[in-house]
């Protein structure tokens, strides 16, 4: 499958220019620092924006769209000057708000077509495009019903269709899978992946659901107390600080543990009984097999250890609480 590279609309010659580049963004709400000197550079692809409640995720998103006025900070979004060219930025961004928001009285298809018109699509073209996108989002015949009567899941799909209807190169999705049942959640994540991989769209995915981030994101930004605590690719984040192997064995493992320690390995035992052999990677695995053979231990599973996103998240949040 072809993987597209995002092209900045203003610098077509520099395909790897960042989607978002912010410096020193600060937002105060009556003295409370919702964003505290945030500096970020987000590359094309799918980026997960994580953080506990009140960490500043929604404020950052609203700031990017110019919905809240910042006290400090400059940058670029899609190569456009931020916050000076915020209207042009909104023209090229599709936003799925976290809040349950809808225009009362409209049917689903009218609501999507209306958003298309507000983004500048002519009337007929907006309606045609709305039909196409509601089909893509699997809204089906429900699109002819009033939006007030929609279930939470349907409203999520409708907001997704509205965010997408004007074919923006960059999507900001704030909790897109909230309220969806497991099937619909999978379908939503599939759509997000399709848009990024087959249509070259960049996506900023703000969520509390860590498995969603793990499933689709290339990069992760963790915000806590208004500051960026972690910002790296999923690949780098999942690598432990030292090469480590996770080993699960059958039966008694005291002799195996003893053998490993005699060979100079640092070994810890996890709560589920898995041994963590620190300081060795998959290249040096033959040594571990030898020790297992010598001590008569059967190895059930052996794999390089990876940092879990949950661990990274909790470490980042607790570090922000106890600096």
């Amino acid at each position, binding site marked *: 499958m072809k993987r597209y590279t995002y092209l900045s609309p203003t610098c077509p010659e520099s395909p790897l220019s960042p989607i978002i580049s912010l410096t020193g963004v600060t937002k105060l*709400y009556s003295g409370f620092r919702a964003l505290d000197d945030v500096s970020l550079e987000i590359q094309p692809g799918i980026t997960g924006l994580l953080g506990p409640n009140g960490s500043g995720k929604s404020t950052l998103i*609203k700031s990017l*769209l110019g*919905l*809240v*006025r910042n006290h400090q900070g400059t940058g670029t979004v899609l190569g456009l000057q931020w916050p000076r060219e915020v*209207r*042009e930025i*909104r*023209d090229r*961004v599709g*936003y799925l*708000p976290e*809040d*349950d*928001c*809808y*225009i*009362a*009285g*409209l049917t689903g298809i*009218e609501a999507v077509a*209306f*958003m298309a*018109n*507000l*983004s*500048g*699509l*002519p009337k007929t*073209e907006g309606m045609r*495009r709305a039909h*196409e*996108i509601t*089909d*893509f989002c699997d809204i*089906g015949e429900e699109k002819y019903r009033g939006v007030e009567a929609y279930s939470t899941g349907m409203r999520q799909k409708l907001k997704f269709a*509205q965010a*997408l209807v*004007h*074919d923006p190169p960059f999507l900001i999705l704030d909790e897109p899978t909230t309220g969806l049942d497991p099937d619909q959640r999978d379908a939503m994540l599939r*759509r997000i992946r*399709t*848009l990024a991989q*087959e*249509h070259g769209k960049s996506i900023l995915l703000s969520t509390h659901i860590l498995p969603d981030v793990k499933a689709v994101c290339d990069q992760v930004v963790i915000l806590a107390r208004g500051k960026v605590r972690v910002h790296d690719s999923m690949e780098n984040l999942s690598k432990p600080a030292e090469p480590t192997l996770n080993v699960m064995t059958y039966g008694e493992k005291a002799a195996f543990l003893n053998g490993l320690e005699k060979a100079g390995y640092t070994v810890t035992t996890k709560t589920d009984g898995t041994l963590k052999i620190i300081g060795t990677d998959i290249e040096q695995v033959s040594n571990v097999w030898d020790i297992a053979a010598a001590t008569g231990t059967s190895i059930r599973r052996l794999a390089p250890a990876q940092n879990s996103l949950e661990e990274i998240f909790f470490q980042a949040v607790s570090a922000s609480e106890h600096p």
Partner: protein
Amino acid sequence: MPVHDLGYRKWVGKRNHQLIRPLYVARSGITLIWRRRMLKLLLMLAWLPIAIPAIGIFCFEQGVTDMTYRRVIIRTLQGPMERPDLAAQMLQDPVSVRHEVWSTLILGFFRVPQLYSMVLLIGLIAPLLISYDLRSKAYLQYFSRPLSPNEYIVGKSAVIWFFLGMITTLPGLTLYLLGVLLSPEISVVGMTWDIPLRILIASVALIVPTTALAIGYSACTVENRYASFAWFATWIMGSVAYQVLTNAPRMGRGRRPRMDVDTERWLLVSPYHTLGKVETWIFGLDTGDSSVWPAVLILLAVIVIGTLFVRSRLIGKLSV
């Protein structure tokens, strides 16, 4: 599942200019409100009073040559319209008062049936516009698009302008056209050509401040019934206060002499009378230019304060 599942496709095409995007806000609002059957009924009823001034103009034009009609119009000017001065002139030279009689009849149409219709119509539709958006958080949808709060306000106001235009400007101009058609000769146009312009200006004076006041109330609360209540209360309480302040001193008790009251002084407490003062001036029936300025300033203040209030409410909501 669609018959032909196209999947996701890129969209390539020319986008509309940003300046016309508020029109889509207006169109969507008009479409939504147009679906209400009550409103259609109200719009039709609002056109009925046009018959009265149209008959008045017909009688006046016939009265230029026919004494029977002239007597009818003179009685009307002396009685319900409270213009004995015009009646006296009509008796001597009807053609010389043509402009004034037409203006008086059309102003009467604006002042009484249309102003009441306007209050009722806005009371029904305006609270739905912004308070609904605040309640359903639709403002997030609007402002995630390249739409500024000012453009949103213009779009929402245009919904009210459209419906008010349907019950004031359009019938006003139709009334003028009917007057011309009911006249025995087309030369009346030469003497009354400025009346359509005055109708347009009077419509603006009526529509713009009332819209600003209405959307201001609509933005006050997420409960549209409170906005409706505040709207009707403003008009009713204002008129009642004006009547009390101007009539109470006149009603001398026992043998106390009745006092002369300066009605202009209390005009500004009532939106109905403030608007009436400005409209009378626009139709050229109130020549006291200096006395109209306080009323004009009040209307301008309502426009500015109403618009700024809505703007600040929207920006405040977005910051939460």
